[in-house]
């Protein structure tokens, strides 16, 4: 990867689950890269209302892509994300609220610097959606994944120690990837520091929204025989109105 073009587009964002495009591609936490591509291409629009061209969102850093996921979630009216945690001491489950607004951080897509043996400094770029997708499918060894991010001119392969140094530098630049939270168990009071996979959490919420939308489409199509795309394009309040009517008549 050489120099990367800076995206100066002012993207606007809409809520997921309010357009026919939202049921075209499946959202699933187990396929994060493809799901995030689908979400961003569906819910972002440039100044003229056009969706990002294919490949644009894949070229963004994973940090920026996660930031946009948070923005889409917030556009749907969510202010907090509820995460179920398990106490490491008493195994009790409790819910944690994450303030989404505080998860939106200023994005810096510039390369990170990290030190390897003998104080030598190396530079690496942030991983992109394309990297994410390839690593998932290829199960790339961490050393090779880290080496592929290097942007300095040295052709050598990073060793384990250097890989860990790069890993720490990336985590510092993109803290939301492994969101560290301090929890206190409401049952036993034990405090612990736990990691939250915010991306997986958000994708799970979007997948749930998509399933609910498909369920509503199915109900209305079965009763009124309207087209799937027409139902999906309806404003949520109108869908809710018709579903309410169906529910009353069914009762």
């Amino acid at each position: 990867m050489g120099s990367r073009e800076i995206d100066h587009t002012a993207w606007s964002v809409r809520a997921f689950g309010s357009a026919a495009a939202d049921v075209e591609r499946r959202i699933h936490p187990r396929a994060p890269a493809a799901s995030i591509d689908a979400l961003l291409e569906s819910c972002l629009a440039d100044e003229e209302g056009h969706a990002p061209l294919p490949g644009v969102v894949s070229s963004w850093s994973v940090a920026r892509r996660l930031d946009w996921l948070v923005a889409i979630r917030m556009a749907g009216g969510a202010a907090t994300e509820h995460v179920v945690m398990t106490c490491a001491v008493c195994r009790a489950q409790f819910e944690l609220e994450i303030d989404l607004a505080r998860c939106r951080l200023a994005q810096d897509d510039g390369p990170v610097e990290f030190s390897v043996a003998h104080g030598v400094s190396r530079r690496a770029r942030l991983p992109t959606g394309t990297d994410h997708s390839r690593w998932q499918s290829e199960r790339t060894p961490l050393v090779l994944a880290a080496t592929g991010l290097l942007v300095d001119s040295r052709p050598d392969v990073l060793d384990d120690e250097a890989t860990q140094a790069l890993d720490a530098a990336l985590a510092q630049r993109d803290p939301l990837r492994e969101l560290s939270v301090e929890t206190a168990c409401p049952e036993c009071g034990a405090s612990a520091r736990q990691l939250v996979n915010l991306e997986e959490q958000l994708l799970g919420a979007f997948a749930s929204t998509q399933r609910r939308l498909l369920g509503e489409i199915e109900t209305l199509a079965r009763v009124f025989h309207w087209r799937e795309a027409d139902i999906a394009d309806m404003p949520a309040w109108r869908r809710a109105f018709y579903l309410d009517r169906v529910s009353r008549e069914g009762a």
Partner: protein
Amino acid sequence: MGYLQTLVASGPAAARNIEPSATLEQDVTVVVDSSPASKRTHEAPSSLDRESPPAVTAPDVARPRAEGASTPDIGGVIDEVTRWVSQPVTGEAIEEMTRARAARTEPVRPDSPTLDSREELHVGRTERIETTAASHPETNAARSRASSVQAAGWFRERDTVASTRASDAVQDGTAIESSSIDRPSTPERETKRVTGSERPRSVDVRIGSISFTVKAPSAPPPASAKAAPSQPVPASRAPPPDGFRFSTSRHYLRRS
């Protein structure tokens, strides 16, 4: 876990096993008789289409069943195809495969000008399957009849199972005259076994509103048809007298 590890480990390969449809968003090209004119490209169904509920209530063929339960052995067909390819296959590919099997049950005449013509089954862009099968006017006719079996969505796979079963039964000396595979409670379901001298030249198979004919072989399958030899039909796979029953599919459990 580590920053990079979360990226590499997210969306594990196990997800592909759970949902093979994730890799079906691609074209499947099937080439028959190596003739350019016969090359067709089938658009793989979208994931939404695949997940659409069936129009008719039918048993869930994708669900693993307990040993001995009555269930369509679609896994057997899928396994036969996936022995040749290393990626999930579509119902189209399975149907083409079944058609080739049905064609191999046809007699072969030495004067056939296209004897041993090749059949190629392309799945995806890189995988290639080659089988050798006898081509013959009657074979082509049978193939044409088989291709008349068109059912949408989920039922395509069931039809494939039925046609495979039927051709197996013909080869095995038994034949199904009439059956219904997906309506266990249908009262008119019936199966007739024909053996020995009663062996028919052709068998009419009916599945719901769809019917087709499977030709019985008048001679053993040609020796040249060895690229994908027909599997011997174990006793448990022969249809019992009380209905068109399928053995439990171990392949199911392996795929799920």
